């Protein structure tokens, strides 16, 4: 138990250190842009494919149930509420933990093992500012954007499912999908993914940057980055959902 508490404490201190040093110039704008491209742009195909497939599957499942209840017309609305409120943010977070978190953990651990971080320090460059802070910021920027894309890919998947069954027009589908959606339904769950992004960036950077087990540590850092980030996202989501429902009661489905 103490080991886990130590880990949580160390990651917390790591995040605080990153937050403090992120405000001190010089700023690593180029690295932030580059890492945002890696975390965001390069994750986009995965996000779009996953969103489309999830939307399709979810629609197929809910359609039959809704039809039994005589509420088949609600399918677009159920689809949009499910994706905007929970599925989009959570799945985007988990996919980022898998793709980007593993990459950050492995890359930084490899840089540690092959003395690249020492080489940066030997040139009097602050390796923490150069390597860690841009990755955390990039994840925090990229994840909300990816969430928007997975939300709409999910809706598109839902429309494809609907198309097979009812030949519904895209216009009607969108009208029904957005009929019950307000900004309060969309914005808070999307903004919470900034927190998910910080979690993925911070945990995987911590595991990679502090790795000291040579080549063995690279694989371990990658695996642990995915596992711990994913669990942390799911756990913290409970807190976020309760906070959102408390602050924005209208978002309750």
């Amino acid at each position: 138990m103490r080991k886990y508490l130590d880990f949580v404490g160390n990651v917390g201190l790591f995040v605080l250190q990153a937050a403090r040093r992120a405000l001190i110039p010089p700023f690593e704008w180029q690295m932030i842009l580059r890492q945002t491209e890696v975390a965001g742009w390069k994750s986009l195909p995965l996000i779009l494919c996953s969103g489309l497939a999830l939307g399709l599957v979810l629609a197929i499942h809910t359609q039959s149930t809704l039809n039994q209840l005589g509420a088949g017309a609600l399918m677009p609305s159920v689809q949009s509420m499910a994706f905007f409120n929970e599925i989009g943010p959570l799945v985007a977070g988990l996919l980022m933990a898998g793709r980007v978190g593993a990459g950050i953990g492995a890359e930084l651990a490899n840089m540690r093992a092959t003395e690249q971080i020492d080489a940066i320090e030997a040139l009097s460059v602050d390796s923490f500012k150069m390597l860690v802070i841009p990755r955390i910021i990039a994840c925090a920027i990229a994840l909300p954007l990816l969430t928007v894309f997975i939300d709409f890919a999910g809706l598109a998947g839902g429309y494809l499912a609907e198309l097979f069954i009812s030949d519904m027009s895209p216009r009607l589908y969108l009208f029904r999908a957005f009929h019950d959606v307000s900004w309060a339904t969309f914005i808070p769950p999307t903004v919470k993914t900034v927190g998910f992004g910080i979690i993925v960036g911070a945990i995987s950077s911590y595991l990679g940057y502090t790795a000291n087990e040579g080549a063995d540590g690279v694989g371990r850092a990658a695996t642990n980055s995915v596992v711990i980030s994913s669990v942390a996202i799911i756990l913290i989501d409970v807190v976020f959902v309760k906070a959102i429902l408390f602050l924005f009661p209208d978002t309750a489905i």
Partner: protein
Amino acid sequence: MKPVNPPVIALHGVNRSFDGRDVLKNMSLEVAPGEALCLLGRSGIGKSVTLKLIIGLIKPDSGTICVDGENIVDMDEDGLSKVRSRIGFLFQSAALFDSLSLYDNLAFPLRRLRPETPDAEIAEIVQKNLEDVGLGKDSRKMPMELSGGMRKRAGLARSLMLDPHILLIDEPISGLDRVTASEIDDLLLQVKKRDRPAMVIVTHDTHEARRVGDRVAVLDNGSLIGVGRIDELAQSENSLVRALVSREE
């Protein structure tokens, strides 16, 4: 034989332990300007740690480490930054940045530490340094495309980008075949002759120590057990010193 000129590197009474294990015990060492000192010894006895102490990547538990007469032990980051800009470091693995091309690897120190340098001048210096180590046509290659020997040469070229007057070199020929190792040693001799930096070279190879080093320091159990010219050490009363300096790899 002690260096005649005031030393550019001076370690006095340095102690360092890791996880309760004493790696360096009361170590004292001096390197004169333009001198090449080879640190010889068995694996895992603190040779690489000594290099990292000299450049301030690791702090000693006690003792003083002076570079150009300044004690760097309690120096702040700004002070260390100035000291490090005068030191070139060739890491054992060459430590080229995987995500950057060879050109960008070499340009990195100039872009970071001398940002006022125009791109054209950076390009000129990079090309010259790459040609000096025989990699003039490989500037666009990524580190993963280079052989072990090429990586070491590239690492050496990068360590020379800021015209350092101190060069720290960690096992430059480890893992290389005899021919490639000899080429690397030739390059070190060229640098030694041309730039006259103070060099500390960590090596296991007596042949290399004999070729490149002016003096050899033999490290064992965290302490220096012999310092001097290699022919002097070959007559040492310490059998381990005699064994290490007379061993040909």
